[in-house]
């Protein structure tokens, strides 16, 4: 397994779960700084659970999480935001009865005084996702599934984070919007932001990533550069559908 120096985030032997269920049982990995790392793994592997534990939505029963060398184990979400992490969760996460614009504005709640150009930022994001501009004054619940996801992505990336945790951003997005999202993430990376992403749309995701990480049953099975993961025949067989499309076309 690849070793990296000066990681932005490390998890050491994390144990966490729900009720009597332990989902993460000694999860350990490090996230390289200033790059995009994609976590893949079967459904129910515990990927989202990892994010929830990092961001303080779920209690880590054991183990240690460090961000930039600082122990952030069991920080609250607010504290995590303050140390420069942000999180875009999986699924539907809007405030249904607020307007689109008000939804987006709430993404800046944790902004410190340092960020003075928030309105301009919001405008810039709306340029990237024109649908949202068009529907800025509509109730968020009336958006289509993909539009809601776009809203969440815009809202989640308003701050100047060190580390972005983003959980399956591509669900519900049209191919063009997936590309747009990935290019935004790449731009952020180029500005020095570290990105940890979960994706089931694994091939496209790994293609734009620097590193890949395979999680299975709550444990890190593989960690390598993205091209290496993509090229690994076992990974391809087990988690990337083993060449779907060709099989049926035969």
């Amino acid at each position, binding site marked *: *397994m690849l070793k990296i120096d000066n990681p932005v985030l490390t998890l050491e032997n994390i144990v966490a779960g*729900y*009720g*009597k*269920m*332990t989902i993460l049982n000694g999860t350990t990995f490090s996230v390289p700084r200033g790059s995009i790392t994609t976590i893949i793994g*079967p459904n129910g592997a515990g990927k989202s659970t990892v994010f929830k534990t990092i961001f303080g939505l779920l209690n880590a029963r054991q183990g240690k999480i460090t961000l930039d060398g600082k122990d952030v184990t069991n920080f609250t979400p607010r504290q995590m935001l303050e140390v420069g992490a942000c999180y875009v969760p999986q699924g539907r996460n809007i405030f249904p009865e607020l307007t689109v614009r008000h939804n987006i504005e709430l993404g800046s709640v944790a902004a410190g005084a340092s960020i003075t150009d928030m309105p301009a930022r919001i405008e810039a994001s709306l340029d990237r996702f024109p649908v949202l501009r068009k529907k800025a004054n509509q109730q968020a619940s009336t958006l289509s599934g993909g539009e809601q996801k776009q809203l969440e992505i815009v809202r989640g990336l308003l701050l100047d984070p060190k580390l972005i945790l983003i959980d399956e951003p591509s669900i519900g997005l049209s191919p063009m919007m997936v590309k747009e999202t990935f290019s935004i993430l790449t731009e952020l990376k180029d500005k020095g932001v570290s990105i940890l992403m979960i994706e089931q749309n694994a091939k496209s995701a790994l293609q734009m990533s620097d590193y890949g990480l*395979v999680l*299975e*049953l709550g*444990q*890190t*099975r*593989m960690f390598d550069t993205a091209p290496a993961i993509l090229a690994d025949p*076992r*990974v391809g067989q*087990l*988690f990337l559908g083993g060449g779907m499309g060709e099989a049926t076309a035969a």
Partner: protein
Amino acid sequence: MTRHPVFSRIDANLATLLIGAVILWFAPAGLKSYGLYVISLWLVMSIAAMGLNLTLGYAGLKSLAQAAFLGIGAYTTALITAKGGIIGPGWSWPLAFVVSGAITFFAGVILGFPALRVKFHYLAFVTLSFATVMFLIFRNEQWLTGGVYGFSNIPRPSVMGSKLDNDLAFFRFVLVVTVLLSLAMWWMLRSPWGRAFTALRENPLRAASLGINLRAYTLLAFAIGSAYGGFAGALYAPLVEFIDPAPFAISASFVLLLTVVVGGQGYFLGPFLGAAFSYVLPEVLRATGGLYLLIYAALVLILLLITPQGIIGIVEKMRENRRQKAAQEQRNASKVMLEA
């Protein structure tokens, strides 16, 4: 094949019910009238709560009218069985029981229609309005109900020609009726109907797309739940031997709601526990003088803080833990596909 969790749960319910019934048959031998009255009341209110538990606990329809149905049943029974009533004392109780159930069933169907249109607090409001109107009818229509003066001298039913004036005999009679109604409820809840009612509560949108007839099940949940209120009323009237509008006021519906929630909404045995809490415990506490309502309210609060799922939630929690442990074992045993 693994055992079906619903089956094992319901089997436990059935066993508890039957064993409980046997114990209750023999237990009160030493009790005086008062004690017998209190446990009879407990059973009667359990029936009413069982009905509300179906409407509210299983089907998720917020009804604030259960005491009104109790009242309809009680007044119907009084009218049919009392001296000077439509038929008078004697064999008329079984008829009164059936008529009480039927009237409340149809009233339930009618009240169910708004439930097809409105949800949540609006439904609560509609049912609350119904309960208010029923209370006013009980109170104002003196020619029919005795109005504020009430309806006295309601006879106890007769079995095999002998009148159940003996409190123990009447209690056992109530017990038998309770067990029969509980069995019917148990059967229904373990049938596909029970699951459909739950689906109504959990996710009506998905339920509809699976062919579940929301209209039919909503109306049924209301109607059957209400009919249990009516059945309870048919026992309540001869138990107290006097009725006036007070026990069927809105506040009584709220107490029934409390009963269901405190017992454990959506669990078969919840109503029995809840009714013990709402109707027996206050009797026990009454000896504490003026403070007993304070103590009672504090106990409700503490209980809900400990187990918001109701008393039976404690048992459920253990069950859930066991289930999770089993799932965990299976998860641990599942094969690792990619060896690190």
